[in-house]
């Protein structure tokens, strides 16, 4: 059992006995301290997609999924191939299957991901909570600001843009929290 606020990409819900993969989940505060979760769901049997909304406290049936460690092997167009780190099996996913984590998928990444399986079939991939990425472009830092409160846009290798602290420079590595769509955490120790 999961509540609406616990939904995240990779969760599979059982609705009308069909398995539905959460591809995207957006948490929003509505009124008077209540909240909703807007989701994009994909029926794993039919491929049909739909959008839904759940209250933060709504109770939902989730499907227990198999999970295995995997790393990105290569990208070919819209196809992303991951490799099981224990038996080296290769699995392929489309970009839309990993829409939520796509902004942080890039060639050469070394993150050990969680490959999510439903009845033996790979349905999505989840990134670690914290990942490190290299900044390929950002404006020069304003002189003297080391507080980390002043933010500016920065671009990653795959083109993803996010806000980083003003003191971050080109080629530096940053830590990103992947849980809320990708939020800058700080300068990476990498």
């Amino acid at each position: 059992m999961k509540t609406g606020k616990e939904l995240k990409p990779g969760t599979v819900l059982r609705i009308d006995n069909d398995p539905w993969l959460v591809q995207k989940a957006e948490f929003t505060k509505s009124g008077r301290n209540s909240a909703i979760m807007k989701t994009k769901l994909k029926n794993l049997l039919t491929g049909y997609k739909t959008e839904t909304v759940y209250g933060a406290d709504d109770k939902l049936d989730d499907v227990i999924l198999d999970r295995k460690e995997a790393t990105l092997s290569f990208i070919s167009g819209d196809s992303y191939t991951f490799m099981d780190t224990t038996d080296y099996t290769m699995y392929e996913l489309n970009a839309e299957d990993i829409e939520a984590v796509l902004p942080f998928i890039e060639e050469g990444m070394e993150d050990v991901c969680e490959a999510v399986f439903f009845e033996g079939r790979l349905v999505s991939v989840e990134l670690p909570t914290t990942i490190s990425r290299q900044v390929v472009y950002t404006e020069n830092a304003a002189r003297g600001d080391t507080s980390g409160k002043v933010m500016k846009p920065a671009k990653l290798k795959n083109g993803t843009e996010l806000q980083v602290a003003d003191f971050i420079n080109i080629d530096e590595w940053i830590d990103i929290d992947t849980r809320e769509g990708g939020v800058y955490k700080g300068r990476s120790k990498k």
Partner: protein
Amino acid sequence: MKATWDIFCTVVDNYGDIGVTWRLARQLVAEHGVAVRLWVDDLRAFVPLCPGADLGAARQMQQGVEVLHWPAEWAPAGTADVVIAAFGCRLPDAYVEALCSRPAPALWLNLEYLSAEEWVEGCHGLPSPKPNGLRTVFYFPGFTERTGGLLREAGLLARRVAFEADPAQRAGHLARLGVQPQAGAALISLFAYENPQLGGWLDALASAANPSHMLVPQGRIVPELCAWLNEPELAVGAIHQRGTLTVQVLPFVSQDDYDRLLWCCDFNAVRGEDSFVRAQWAGRPMLWHIYVQEENAHWEKLEAFLAIYRKGLSEPAAHALLTLWRAWNMHQDMDAAWRGFMVHWPELQAHARQWCAKQAAQPDLAMTLVQFYRNWL
């Protein structure tokens, strides 16, 4: 055969929940000919809005609406064709089970809070399939055609125009409330939650060159009014003068009388959701005290409304509007903000009329709900 509608309302605090649901229920009955049962868990909040209602009645008919006390222990009561759970309230389990066993499915709607934020359009009308096979639909009121609209009774604006055109109606209504405004005094209504910025605003009004007369229906702001006046308490009808400001406490009035009060006033300070919408239909400059949320989530909602409401104003007038509303809701200097606001008074007056007309061009919430049900069938 009439479609049947059940509206469920839990009174969390204040009059917002019951205010919206009671208004919606009345309109559905009066204008759309449907049978409405309004389930309320706390009739103490309902009675002030509907004078004449019976606090102890488990069931009563009021203005064509069957108003029922929603008991803690639910007793089987049948289901309706359309079920509205207002503001995320949880329906009784037994009622939900009864919905599951209906031969024809019911349309179950979650009527959500009003917000001008952009995400509302993307969530309005989306389904919420449940594990038990039932589906609810999230239904959002709002300010654009991609939302459910605002509550607005047919003929409301025409009634307002007629009221404004007839000085005797205005004088009569004020007299019934015990108000005798001084000639030339600006009338201001004040309905707000507790707000420490009140003193700054009252200081500005009291020291202004032009007189003003503030009318305060009983409510949560009164203790702060007492503090500013240095009075231990303020009874209904109490009138106090400070400088050029007269302050008067009014009784809590019915929804229709509150509308007329807004129409009598030059400026209306409102709060929450229901009075906020009514102030927009009054077509006068207004000030919104938004419901405070954790982590100041309400600030985004305030800014979202200001972003759409300010459109069409000159930059200085928009700045004055933003400054006043932010001061009231974000604990900033109301004295200076009010003085700055008054500089743009004619423009802000005209803008309030235009905003009202623009919103009135869209279908109202009751209408869109009925249409949604028809399309769903």
